[in-house]
């Protein structure tokens, strides 16, 4: 009978993680064995609970345990300025800079015909509803300076034409094509503070 490696199951799961190969997975598997049962239980419990309970904020579509996310619940924040991002991870990058104190809207992606992403698959109508409420004076389009980001920005700008708000976009000192969540905090801070009107 063929003997089975007792760690095969764990290793198989771990290799599903980004940039984890066979070797690293094996190293991690042994690391889990070195932990106490309680620690491993805690690890697994938090992972499962987080996945079970995470939802999207019903207002901005940030990730949240409650119907309203932390940002939307915080009334200290500037309620008249809205920052539009593609994904929740970009909110985390922008929050790290402490440069922005307004609210967010997560589109859920960028327009990209190659990937089959069309405008109606993004949360654009929800965005327009929020803006039409008249709450906002400025909308910042914080989208990656790629073709997809630029196309989405142009699309949003054309949808928002005629709304009495100022539309701005990040002043990228970022190399064209760079990702917001890869930019270092300084670069992103500068991009935010130097934002300019979208033509």
């Amino acid at each position: 009978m063929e003997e089975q490696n007792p760690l095969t199951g764990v290793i198989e799961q771990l290799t599903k993680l980004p940039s984890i190969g066979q070797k690293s997975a094996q190293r991690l598997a042994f690391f889990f064995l070195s932990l106490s049962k309680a620690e491993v239980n805690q690890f697994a419990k938090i992972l499962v609970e987080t996945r079970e309970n995470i939802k999207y904020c019903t207002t901005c579509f940030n990730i949240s345990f409650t119907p309203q996310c932390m940002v939307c619940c915080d009334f200290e924040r500037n309620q008249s300025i809205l920052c539009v991002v593609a994904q929740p991870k970009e909110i985390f990058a922008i929050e790290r800079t402490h440069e922005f104190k307004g609210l967010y809207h997560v589109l859920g992606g960028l327009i990209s015909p190659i990937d089959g992403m069309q405008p109606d698959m993004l949360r654009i109508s929800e965005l327009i509803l929020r803006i039409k409420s008249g709450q906002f004076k400025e909308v910042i389009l914080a989208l990656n300076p790629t073709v997809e980001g630029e196309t989405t920005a142009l699309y949003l700008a054309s949808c928002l034409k005629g709304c009495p708000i100022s539309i701005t976009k990040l002043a990228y000192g970022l190399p064209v094509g760079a990702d917001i969540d890869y930019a270092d905090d300084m670069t992103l801070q500068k991009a935010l503070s130097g934002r300019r009107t979208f033509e």
Partner: protein
Amino acid sequence: MVNKVWIKGFRNLVEQVVTLHPRVTVVLGPNNQGKTNFLEAVYFLMTGKSPAKAQSDMMVSILLPKAQLGLSVVGFGEDKKLYIDLLRDGTKRIQWDGEFVKTHRTVMGVLAVQYWSADVLWLFQESPSFRRDFLDLFCERYFAEFSGFDRRYQSILKQKNSLLGMMSVDMKMLELLNQQLAQVGSELVRFRNLAIGMMMEKVTPYLASYFPNQGDDICVEYAFSGFLNGVSVDEYGAKLLQLLTEKRSKEVMVRQSLYGPHRDDFVVKVGDMPMVGYYSRGMTRIFALLMTFSQLLLLGSDQKRVSVLLLDDAFAELDLAKKKALMSDFSEYAQVVYTTVLEEDRELSDDLSLYRVAAGRIELCG
């Protein structure tokens, strides 16, 4: 100048050191003895690429695990040496001036090279994409910003073609992509026209002697796709967007981007006539050679780089007087290495080194 070239394990060439003449090196011999391989080795040393885009496993000798090449440059106060190891899987190890470097960037800051075979006539015969590549390769090397714009243009184009491939095309999306295409495209067109202007400025002084009485009538015209000819570079972006808007339904119907810099071309004209058909093959060949030479002047001697011109039987069909004239003009600014099957080419210059090649060995004569 490039002084010595050392070769080991490269294609059929035996291990040897070849000393280049300061002006003209002629490598004479029958076909399939190693002439082209020698030029390829020199080009590979100077750029890290094969001029024929050959795979690296083809370039490494079947008898050895790796190819090793080296060259020495003199005339920089001190000598510099360049060594490259090339493995069959394409791995390269580059050593320049005693230090290991990752890419050829620093090397190409000091050395400039052009390679042309008898196919130089393709500049007139091949499809527009051949001419665009000829122009764009130069722009990439000459203008630092060009490749960024080019990559951007290609990604917009890919998105647009995907959109055009869809069952129902969102016209607003198409317009937004067209806007970006026109904007980035006009940058490409600006660089390409700048390049043509600079090349012609270099070619012009030579025209009178090679094209008596008609030198003044020769010009290179950038040919915009979609009948935009006559449009100035400054207004091109706006005109292209207008054209793309007008032709929307046509592009949707054929599901392809039909207009823009990726479909442009250039034409060499004598007066109102295309040069091909007006002149003999020999004369058009001379013009093609002058154009490639102009690129070497711009990338090489103008920037104080050591310039090497590798010509693989590129003077084919020309008479000896014309060949000698070209050789004298070229070797004034660049070290020329010329391969040939013709005995008469021993007389290409009064001052040259003559090598004979047989079975992968290149030997100095006289």
